[in-house]
């Protein structure tokens, strides 16, 4: 009698893991929606093509060729090997073995399994190189101050996970191959195993029943590992594998030099200059700028969850490379950390944020960091998925100046000059033509 117990256990695990994951994703969407409104729904065809080029096509990743190509391998491997995960899930639920071998013809199935194996090996090699870049070569951008503790642990965890999953996958195939050769039970010949065939000698001396149990252990560990990894995403920087898509879709498409004209200020200024054009029912004037995460818009909040902490932004940042405190990556990491805390506060207090005496400004991001920015857009340009740290920096500067009047002292002089003389320097507007007479 074939017991259906494993199928029941499998289906139960599948439901639990997909269910828990969906629950977290729903939570994530809710948190992102805490952000202020911003219209990023215009021009869907251009947005779609950006997403296809940048997220799906990885066009900005290859700006750094070594990590770009390695990443491409892991990315393609991830997508293609998912076809195999689908087969594993069908097998798990129905109790079939290598279900696709029955619906595809032999050549196609062999080709599929062989390509999964080759990709698995390439992923394994890439991940080992990635690990070495972080832990042996010690590339500078992986060692900055903000990369201590959890970020470092998280980054390494992901790599260990991928190594374990690939090894389990190849070992599962190797033991399967042995069982196929020994004509064991329903392990009929299916698939081509160009890589795992090299692992066969490891298990070949074992008895058939041992190989069978090993094959089951590898099969189960592999899929349980995948379920676990799926649920790890939500807690990790690895969320980028999902959020890269909406993140590039909803990214700013205007010229990078164009900063938003603040509508709340516009109305105030219109009231001064042209009261007839100003909106009269502007009762609840917003706070100007951002001092905490709830002052940011939803795209900025999504940016924070999409960031995978690669540090390309910070390594291109002129302030960062000359030893200033500013690191655009840290801006994104701080925003996410603070948002996590705020969203937990809101969840605990039945949908309302109760002041916790903490805020993004000062407690996470210092004024010194904000004043170090040259607004050069190098970070925005460098981000492989179009995250915009500069917009957060500018929003926070607006708060510093317009709400706290705590401008950098040098800048106060400049602004006084602009206000009084129409130039950032102490020259009189009436002298603007003097240069014509000078020789």
């Amino acid at each position, binding site marked *: 009698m074939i017991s259906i117990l494993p199928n029941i256990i499998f289906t139960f695990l599948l439901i639990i893991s997909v269910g828990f994951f969906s629950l977290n994703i729903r939570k994530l969407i809710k948190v992102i929606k805490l952000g202020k409104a911003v219209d990023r729904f215009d021009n869907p065809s251009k947005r779609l093509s950006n997403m296809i080029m940048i997220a799906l096509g990885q066009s900005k990743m290859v700006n750094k060729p070594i990590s770009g190509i390695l990443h491409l391998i892991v990315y393609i491997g991830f997508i293609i090997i998912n076809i195999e995960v689908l087969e594993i899930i069908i097998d798990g639920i129905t109790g079939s073995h290598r279900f696709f071998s029955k619906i595809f013809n032999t050549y196609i199935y062999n080709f599929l399994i062989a390509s999964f194996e080759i990709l698995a090996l390439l992923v394994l090699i890439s991940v080992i190189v990635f690990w070495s870049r972080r832990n042996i070569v010690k590339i500078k951008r992986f060692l900055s101050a903000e990369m201590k503790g959890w970020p470092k642990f998280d980054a390494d965890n992901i790599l260990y996970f991928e190594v374990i999953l690939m090894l389990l996958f190849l070992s599962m195939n190797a033991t399967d191959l042995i069982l196929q050769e020994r004509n064991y039970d329903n392990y009929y010949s299916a698939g081509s195993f160009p890589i795992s065939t090299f692992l066969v000698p490891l298990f070949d001396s074992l008895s058939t029943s041992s190989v069978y149990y090993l094959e089951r252990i590898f099969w189960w560990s592999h899929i349980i590992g995948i379920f676990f990894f799926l649920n790890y995403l939500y807690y990790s920087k690895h969320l980028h594998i999902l959020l890269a898509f909406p993140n590039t879709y909803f990214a700013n498409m205007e010229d990078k030099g164009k900063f938003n004209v603040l509508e709340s200020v516009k109305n105030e200024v219109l009231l001064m200059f042209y009261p007839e054009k100003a909106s009269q029912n502007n009762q609840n004037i917003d706070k100007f700028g951002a001092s905490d995460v709830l002052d940011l818009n939803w795209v900025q909040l999504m940016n924070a969850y999409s960031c995978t902490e690669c540090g390309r932004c910070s390594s291109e940042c002129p302030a960062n490379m000359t030893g200033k405190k500013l690191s655009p990556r840290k801006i994104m990491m701080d925003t996410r950390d603070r948002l996590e805390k705020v969203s937990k506060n809101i969840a605990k207090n039945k949908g309302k944020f109760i002041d916790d005496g903490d805020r993004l400004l000062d407690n996470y991001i210092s004024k010194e960091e904000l*004043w170090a920015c*040259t607004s*050069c857009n190098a970070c*925005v340009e460098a981000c492989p998925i179009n995250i915009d740290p500069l917009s957060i920096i500018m929003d926070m500067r607006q708060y510093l100046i317009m709400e706290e009047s705590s*401008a950098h002292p040098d800048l106060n002089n400049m*602004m006084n000059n*602009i206000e009084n003389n129409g*130039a950032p320097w102490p*020259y009189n507007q009436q*002298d603007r033509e003097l240069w014509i007479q000078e020789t």
Partner: protein
Amino acid sequence: MKVPILSELKSRGESPEYLFWIGCAGSFDDRSKKVTKAFIKILNKANISYAILGKEESCTGDPAKRSGNEFLFQMKAISNIEILNSYDIKNVITTCPHCFNTIKNEYPDLGGNYNVIHHTTFINNLIKDNKITISGGFYKGKKITYHDPCYLGRANGIYEAPREVIEKLDAELVEMKSCKSKSLCCGAGGAQMFKEPEKGNEDINIKRSEEAIKTDSKIVAVSCPFCNTMMSDGMTSKQKDIDVLDIAQMIEKAEDL
């Protein structure tokens, strides 16, 4: 030097095709005043119908906005737009990428819609349309590197116009380690021009100047008054005898205007 002032032209019933927006640096900074004059000579040579605002010109508000002072920015913007619209201005040329970016990108939402042209694009078009001719020779074979201003390059995607002008001068254009979309800032943007840099281990303009020095160029071509200051200061502190020249000044010298 005779420079047409818009209010005077208007009183005579003339309306020039272009407004040359000089900018604060172009009006008051010694280095930039030379660039203003060089560009005026080019406009005259090409017989362009233009005028300047003179005493009616004021700061665009860019440094205020980049500091975070949206109020001051919008106040400056709205009063500037009022003046520009009262003269029915259609085309604005500027030698400053910051003025260029602000008028082009941030004035439309406040009611100011103009065709804004940076002087490097304008000069390149003059050469293409044969309105000025470059005899070449002066810079023949000289190594010149070009520094992209952030607010022209990354901010607005203009990388080629200034390079095309340099190439038409018969010079040998050599690129720095980081250029075009990956160009390194001079350190002056985002209102840094008007404050001391934050604590660090190096100044940004020194780092950029080092990149320029490594190209072994005789001239660093710039197209922004702030980059001009930062790169010139960088060369001085590195004690290098390398000229920092705006694209307009290079044409002025080459053509002996």
